[in-house]
């Protein structure tokens, strides 16, 4: 049965995913959310760990369901020659193939770029590795916080005077996936224009490094090595998160004297407004620690929502620092499609986090939740590869489709 049309800018593009955990699947998700047909190759003997975390039912695994909406699932045993042959036949029908398997795994399975371009000369192959596919450290593997530490990014994150503890431990994988998806579409443009495919070698560590590009380049110009600086900003002060009632925090960023005076007025701090230590941006920067302490004393007993609203109305950027509880109950995110419902095999529907974009016209529809394992075997084997029902039954019986 043909799949429903979903529209979107990447309609008609077919992507094959041999991915696990987060970075690779996130790249696939973004492409699917832009309208591509993304087929994830899976096997019960070599499961994506995300299908295993949080329970025994691989079709109802919370982590997996939270990422893989609008992904199709086909089973093929990568440990068998026949399974690999089926994957090669899928490559022949695809535009892009993405993997984030261990270094060397694709080549050992005869799925390296040279092998795949024999099958599909204009294939775009995107390979995601911690350090990329080459270089003296290419053999190493790691996890998101390892990339962030190696990249130089984590060294820049920490409270002043503390160990640079880096971004939250979850940070990194998803951004790597986003950069991977970006590179894949760029390659698609080159193919449209010239007919050529290519190999894309993506380094997760370098992805994190690219996020501190201006800090690194600034160092090249000024020779000042960047370091963890809390919430310090050399061009805004006050600039930070300030405590409010009930353990809440309010982020405030003041760029000039007008905003500073508005802040003092709104918060009822005439003494600060007249304090010479804080009279100009330069003065505030020079005394930013004292200023942070003084301002915290004034915010501490205020309600975060009420104070934020008053400051914004006065022209001072001030926003709630959102906890997971705040985010889950954010009505604005629901109304924009930042949260939305998709289908769910067990519960009927499931809330998910929608894309960061809206498009007019022809936004891709995002309606189907993550697939059951092998949910699209029939579609891929019968319609895409053109196998007979008997052939599919036989492959299933012999656990090539597993």
């Amino acid at each position: 049965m043909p799949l429903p049309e979903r529209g979107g800018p990447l309609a008609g593009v077919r992507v094959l995913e041999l991915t696990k955990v987060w970075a690779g699947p996130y790249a696939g998700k973004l492409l699917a959310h832009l309208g591509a047909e993304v087929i994830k190759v899976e096997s019960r003997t070599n499961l994506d760990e995300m299908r295993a975390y949080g329970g025994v039912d691989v079709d109802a695994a919370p982590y997996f369901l939270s990422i893989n909406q609008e992904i199709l699932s086909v089973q093929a045993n990568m440990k068998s020659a026949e399974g690999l042959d089926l994957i090669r036949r899928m490559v022949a029908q695809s535009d892009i193939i993405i993997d984030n398997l261990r270094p060397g795994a694709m080549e050992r399975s005869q799925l390296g770029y040279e092998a795949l371009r024999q099958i599909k000369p204009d294939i775009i192959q995107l390979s995601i590795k911690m350090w990329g596919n080459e270089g003296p450290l290419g053999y190493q593997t790691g996890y998101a916080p390892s990339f962030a530490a190696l990249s130089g990014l984590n060294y820049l994150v920490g409270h002043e005077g503390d160990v640079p503890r880096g971004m939250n431990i979850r940070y990194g994988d998803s951004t790597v996936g986003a950069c991977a998806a970006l590179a894949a579409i760029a390659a698609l443009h080159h193919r449209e224009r010239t007919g050529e495919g290519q190999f894309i070698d993506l380094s997760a560590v370098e992805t994190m490094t690219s996020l501190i590009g201006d800090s690194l380049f600034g160092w090249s110009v000024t020779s000042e090595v960047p370091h963890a600086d809390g919430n310090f900003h050399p061009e805004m002060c006050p600039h930070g998160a300030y405590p409010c009632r009930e353990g809440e925090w309010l982020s405030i960023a003041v760029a000039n004297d007008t905003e500073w005076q508005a802040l003092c007025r709104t918060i009822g701090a005439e003494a600060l407004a007249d304090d010479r230590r804080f009279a100009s941006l330069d003065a505030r920067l020079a005394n930013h620690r004292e200023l942070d302490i003084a301002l915290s004393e004034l915010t501490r007993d205020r309600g975060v929502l009420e104070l934020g609203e008053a400051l914004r109305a006065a022209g001072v950027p001030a926003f709630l620092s959102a906890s997971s509880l705040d985010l889950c109950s954010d009505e604005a995110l629901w109304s924009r499609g930042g949260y939305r419902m998709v289908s769910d095999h067990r519960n009927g529907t499931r809330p998910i986090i929608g894309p960061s974009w809206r498009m007019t016209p022809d936004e891709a529809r995002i309606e189907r939740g993550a697939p059951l394992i092998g949910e699209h075997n029939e579609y891929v084997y019968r319609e895409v590869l053109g196998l007979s029902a008997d052939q599919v039954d036989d492959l299933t019986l012999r656990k090539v489709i597993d």
Partner: protein
Amino acid sequence: MGALNGTLIVETAERVCGEYCGKLLADFGAEVIKLERPGGAPTRQMGPFMDSIAGPERSALFAYLNTNKKSVMLDLAEAADQPVLERPVLERLLARADALIDDHAEPLTLPADLAERHPRLVHCLITPFGQGAPAEWQQARSINVINAGGWAYHTPSETTPDKPPLKGAGRFLSDYEAGIDAALATLASLYRQRRTGSGQFIDISEVQVQVNRVDCVLGRMLAGEAEPGPERTRYDMGGPATSFACKDGFLYLFMTTRAHWAALVELMGEPEWTKSFPDDWLEFHCTPDHVAEFRRHFAPWAAEQEKVPISEAGQKLGVAIVPVNTAADLLLSEQFIQRGFFQRLSHPVLGQGLYPTVPYKLSRTPVELATPAPALGQHNAEIKADHAAA
């Protein structure tokens, strides 16, 4: 040759998110024409500056964000009793352009009007909360965005309630993230334009980029499979992974499996204290007490190590231990050197500089920094002559 050779992009963006989006596209080989107000883009006035002296050609930030672009100075502001002379130049540029990148909460032209006049144009507009949000929300700055999106509240991991949420690395982390999604959506839409000849309006919310990046943590809470809460630690994983001080800086140790533990015990030379830990403690007994006990013993050992040799020895045994690299360390890293991540480029005022490039190596269309950031209005004559009134 670049992947986007032949694509023409007009950039009216003036914030880091929009300029980074334009840079990503320019570095792929698109022709990106940056339109600057009289006096120049505000990012030219942001430091750090060469020799600490401000000036439109002296900003390292601007130089980094605008490689491979062209600059045209256009006065597009409305002025009473005076025709906006240069609007027609913009209109003619847009008639020829494939995409427009903007990041103003109040754009010059309403997206719907622009779509009507230029139906083929891909118009990408990046704002803090996306179109339709109240005007006072749209004044959010980077630190507000990363706080509103939840990452600041949960950074670093294991933060105690008395310490403030953090803005992340540098000044602009949320801008980089938004720039990536904007470039992604724009490229996807340009692909559709190739096939259909029509454009789209793309409305990017910087806060939603932040929220999307945590899909498999927050998504489980949204679905009721994990409990959301006010704790600063709700995104954490609860294991022993963290940064440790060592002799010459910091190490990051990640450890979740029995194999990781066995390898670490071997790396440390099987000290006596490790015997009180069950072999499978990370998988089945990873309690706060065990974690604290582990760190109490591990920290003094780590303090005696040098970050690079011990990480290499650890990696060979299967320990996910890595140095917390500083900027200076990156330049010495053989891996960065061999992949050519940093590229030298000469800028007329800033001189020779080392530019971080991109994390993706495209075999047929490698990214190359061909030209440094343009001087203000450097391409006025060339572009305005092309688009002067007929």
